[in-house]
């Protein structure tokens, strides 16, 4: 399986925040969820990938080619959806489309009209009068109307009601059915990842903590519970996070077999992605 997106050693520095050696890959045919808490660096990473902000160092390869030197041809193959209104709000949707569409060699007016109809959007309506959900749908219509092979989305479902979120996620699922595509979307809503993500990249304080397949991630970790008297310093070190009371403990671990050898009577259950994410972030602190 080829990699559609490869980020290697991305560094970006601000006064009070920096991206440090951010590296990950997006395999072809996968939906990759890019998760992290607010302020972790998700949006900064996406902006750096798209060249909207500069970077101190790092390499971005898309479809096997460096972004620098191939910007026009690569951006023709990328659809972008941002979390907020990245439009001229005083324009109508039709006017905004008339600005964006000519940029793409493979713009398909039929696809655009289909998505506008599906989303029940009227092109004559001014963007400032749209709700957040309608703006997101319009952004998605633009992104999907030029035969894009890679969708990069920055918190596309943030602030949306469950019905619209579900609709957007279904559309992403449909989009992936045609092969050779990829979706990279950032979110802090774990249930979205549960629904459609194949791989997960976790970022915290500007550093990549995890990059692996979702099912493997969940399989590799367990929430373990047991009696407090069973814990010693060595077994404590085997947990990513640990909550202990006077009577018992509960914690996330990736070393279940070792723990079972030390504590045969522990209870183990499959954790949520959210539990794993919080465990890694908490450990970092």
């Amino acid at each position, binding site marked *: 399986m080829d990699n559609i997106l490869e980020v290697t050693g991305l560094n970006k520095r601000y006064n009070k925040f920096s991206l440090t050696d951010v590296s990950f890959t997006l395999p072809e045919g996968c939906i990759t969820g890019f998760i992290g808490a607010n302020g972790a660096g998700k949006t900064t990473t996406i*902006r750096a990938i798209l060249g909207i902000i500069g970077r101190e160092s790092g390499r971005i390869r898309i479809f096997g080619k460096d972004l620098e030197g191939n910007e026009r041809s690569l951006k023709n193959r990328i659809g972008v959806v941002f979390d907020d209104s990245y439009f001229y709000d*005083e*324009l109508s949707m039709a006017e905004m489309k008339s600005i964006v569409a000519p940029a793409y060699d493979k713009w398909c007016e039929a696809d655009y009209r289909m998505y506008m109809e599906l989303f029940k959007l009227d092109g004559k309506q001014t963007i400032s009068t749209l709700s957040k959900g309608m703006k997101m749908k319009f952004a998605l219509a633009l992104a999907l109307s030029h035969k894009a092979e890679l969708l990069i989305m920055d918190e596309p479902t943030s602030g949306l009601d469950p019905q619209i979120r579900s609709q957007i996620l279904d559309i992403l699922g449909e989009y992936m059915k045609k092969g050779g595509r990829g979706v990279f979307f950032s979110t802090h809503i774990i249930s979205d990842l549960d629904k459609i993500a194949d791989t997960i990249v976790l970022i915290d304080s500007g550093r990549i903590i995890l990059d692996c397949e979702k099912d493997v991630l969940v399989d590799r970790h367990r929430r373990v519970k047991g009696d407090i008297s069973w814990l010693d310093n060595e077994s404590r070190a085997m947990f990513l996070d640990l909550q202990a009371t006077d009577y018992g403990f509960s914690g996330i671990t990736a070393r279940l077999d070792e723990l079972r050898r030390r504590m045969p009577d522990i209870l183990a259950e499959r954790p949520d992605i959210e539990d794993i994410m919080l465990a890694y972030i908490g450990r970092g602190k």
Partner: protein
Amino acid sequence: MLIHLVKKDILISKKYAQLVILMAIGIPLFIGWRMPEFAQYTGFALAVVFSEFMFFQNLSMKENQYSKASALLCSTPYPSRGLVQSKYIVFILIFVYCVLIYWIESLFIPQVGSMNLTGVLAVFLGASVVYSIYVPLQYKLGYDKTKIFFMLVIMASPVSLAAFAKYGNLRPDFLDMIPVLLQNVLLFMAGAAVLLISMKISVHIYRHKELI
């Protein structure tokens, strides 16, 4: 591709585009009617100043207000230099429009005055110099820090142009020795060169700018 970015600039400032259309028509007529002694060069120059700089001021304000939209356009295949180049093309288009309107008015309304090519190109050079200084400064320092510049130009232009028309005779004597054709070529090339240099500087600044 550039034509769509020019269209974008006009679309996002469409109210001021309509104002430009009216000002280019109205200002020479007004000057010719109320201040005929200042008709001709002053009327035309004022029409250019007001049209160009008021439009660009509004365009800059809109782009500052919707800075995220510029970021979206940069994520498309549009080259970032195109977003800068369109500003200079709009400048030239507005200038050509002002010239055409003034020429048509001068054919039918003698009070507006008439102008020769040298006068037109002198105004072109003057406007180009001001524009070419302002645009890279704005890209470098941002709209908020530089908006006062154009406001000053717009407010000072009626008085300063009228004073220049009445008292100024900055035309050096040696110019009489240069054929008119050569004067026109030099004026045009100077204006074009100033705009080109300014555009290259602006593109360089914009390319390294953090859009958000």
